[in-house]
């Protein structure tokens, strides 16, 4: 458990420091739309800038955000945005677990199982194509079936999930790691004793497999958050990702929006990794011992 706390805490601390540092970088020009910063003279000193942003973030009144999110305060809109992004990541990860983990276990358990091997090869080839290719393919399909289909939120959500699922070797990596850890687990001498003494294998398989699978899922979740914000932007899903990118694209750049949404995304990533590592710690008696 200690590694989990230390790791999570360190990550949050460092990402906050990184984002605050971003705020401190002197912007190329002042923030014209921020009417509340009337008193900003030439280029305010570093402390003034941070203070002003902090005050605004805390008070929840972010006028600039209003142009993007259309509501009076970013914080009112944050839960909804976080839910969308979170839903995208969670659904994709659930699908990964449902597809890659069983296929990986089957492939790891018996190297010569023809069905498992072909499934593995299919997963590998499919997932080796980048997200871009899948997005373009889906758009080509969408055009063929008329422009309107892309406006239905459910269609865009599923399209985003499919793109994320099949892109950037996500399925392939998880499948490989699960297959490898299954193969290594079954080669462990104590598994042979469990089978020879007639104990039930399931408990030992779970206890042996959950930690490596959870580690594989945890590490890929972080990359998935990155993929999710790309998918949001591609399919125009109103989530944290599209907000951040809009803020990035806006001229002049709205720092507060970037600050808040980055922290939100980081927390999303860390919470998911914490859940996965928690599962690993609970299942593996060895760590507890």
């Amino acid at each position, binding site marked *: 458990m200690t590694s989990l706390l230390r*790791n999570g805490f*360190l*990550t949050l*601390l*460092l*990402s906050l420091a*990184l984002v605050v540092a*971003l705020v401190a*970088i002197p912007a190329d020009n002042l923030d014209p739309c921020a009417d509340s910063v009337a008193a900003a003279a030439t280029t305010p000193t570093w402390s003034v800038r941070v203070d002003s942003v902090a005050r605004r973030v805390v008070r929840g009144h972010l006028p600039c955000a209003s142009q993007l999110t259309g509501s009076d305060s970013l914080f009112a809109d944050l839960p909804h945005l976080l839910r969308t992004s979170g839903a995208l990541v969670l659904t994709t990860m659930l699908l990964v677990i449902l597809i890659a983990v069983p296929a990986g276990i089957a492939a790891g358990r018996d190297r010569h199982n023809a069905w498992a091997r072909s499934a593995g090869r299919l997963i590998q080839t499919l997932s*080796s*194509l*980048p*997200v*871009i*290719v899948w*997005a*373009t393919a889906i*758009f*080509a399909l969408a*055009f063929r079936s008329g422009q309107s289909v892309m406006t239905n939120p459910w269609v865009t959500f599923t399209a985003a999930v499919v793109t994320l699922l099949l892109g*950037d070797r996500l399925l392939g990596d998880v499948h490989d790691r699960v297959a490898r850890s299954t193969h290594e687990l079954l080669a462990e001498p104590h598994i042979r004793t469990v089978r020879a003494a007639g104990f039930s294998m399931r408990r030992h398989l779970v206890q042996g497999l959950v930690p490596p699978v959870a580690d594989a899922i945890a590490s890929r979740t*972080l*990359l998935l*958050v*990155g*993929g999710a*914000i*790309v998918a949001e*932007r*591609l399919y125009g899903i109103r989530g944290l990702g599209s907000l*951040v*990118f809009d803020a*990035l*694209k806006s001229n002049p*750049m709205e720092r507060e929006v*970037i600050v808040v949404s*980055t922290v939100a*995304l*980081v927390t999303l*990533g*860390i919470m998911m*990794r914490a859940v996965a590592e928690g599962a690993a710690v609970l299942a593996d008696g060895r760590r507890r011992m």
Partner: protein
Amino acid sequence: MTKLIIPTAFNKRRRIPARMLSGLVLLAMLIAANIAAYIFHHERSDSYLCLAPSHIAIIRTALGAERARESSDATASFAFGFNCSGDAGSDASDSSARLFGTSPAPIARVGRPYTYRPSLIQSGNTDRWSVEAIDAAGRETGWLAVDPQSGVLTGTPLVPTTLDVRLTAKSDDGRARLQQWKLYVDDRFLLLGTDNNGRDVARALLEAMQSTVLPATIAALIVLGVGVPLGALSGFFGGRAASLLIAISSAVQSIPGILLIALAGRLSGWNLLLIMAAVGVVLLPETASGVRELVERFKRRDFVEAARELGMSDNRILWDEIVWHNGRQFIVERVAQSYAAAVLAEVTLGFLDLTDSLTPSLGRVLLVGREVNAPAMLVPALLLLLLVIGCFSLLPRGFAELWGRPR
């Protein structure tokens, strides 16, 4: 005692495997394309990114186009549309362009209809539109006509020339707004045709490759130069500083990589080198922890102590016995993956319309292709992208065959 000559390097006599060859050929093609693009890129005039007539001939013969024509006007260069100074879309001549929301396409194709629909920003009242298009010799051309009420410009050019077009809109209160731009009429054959603005797609791809693949080497070098040693040293010597660095980089890893890269891009004004450096830093932790785990796994093996017993220094054990002999395949795979990931990151930025149109990028070609649904643009761009990905997955497999055990 049988005299036995053992080649000191035991896998010397082995021909280069097929997969390795194909990977190398692909890589060579990419680099050649980039060098070519770089040469032409270097030649461009300051206002337009364009080819000097002599270079057109070279490309056309290289691309096997059937009719090479020297344009009469030595200075008239073949506009390519990626204007590298000033904002995209506006022509250099008229400051009033800012009043017009849209920008005219700079190239017209002989035999293909050319249209432009201006939109006045404050067009409250009715305006009467008129156009004059004078070619270099000062003659008025007839094919360009404007609809007085809506100002829509239409016409099909017949002869390849260079025109100075002036579009004026007179409102009834006497104020006149003027948009002026240089229109090139071109009739040359273009291998991949043009995009909606009449720009040559092949040229755009060539240009994009140069701005995507070559800078990606910076990311790969960072991963190789910093990630691998960091992982190896912290794995073998377990230094406190090295593991702290890895902890920090894994913390950085929790921030979505694409966001960091986009931020770095935006803050640096889309300076490609800095973007690629950011990509390198984002990809670094994965490689570093991978190498560290590999080194730790091998460090515990007895042959490390056996090597120390032989009198091998720790450094040689780490770099020769563990990293080179047992880790090289993993490192080559990881660096190839990072290279492909760097290219993909840059393409993703372009695809998400995050980069400005100044930097030619494969992503932007895909973006434009997606918006106007022009297969002529999408298909070649995708093929080029898959070429890059394919090349970087073939290379490690080729190395695996070369370094693997002889069967």
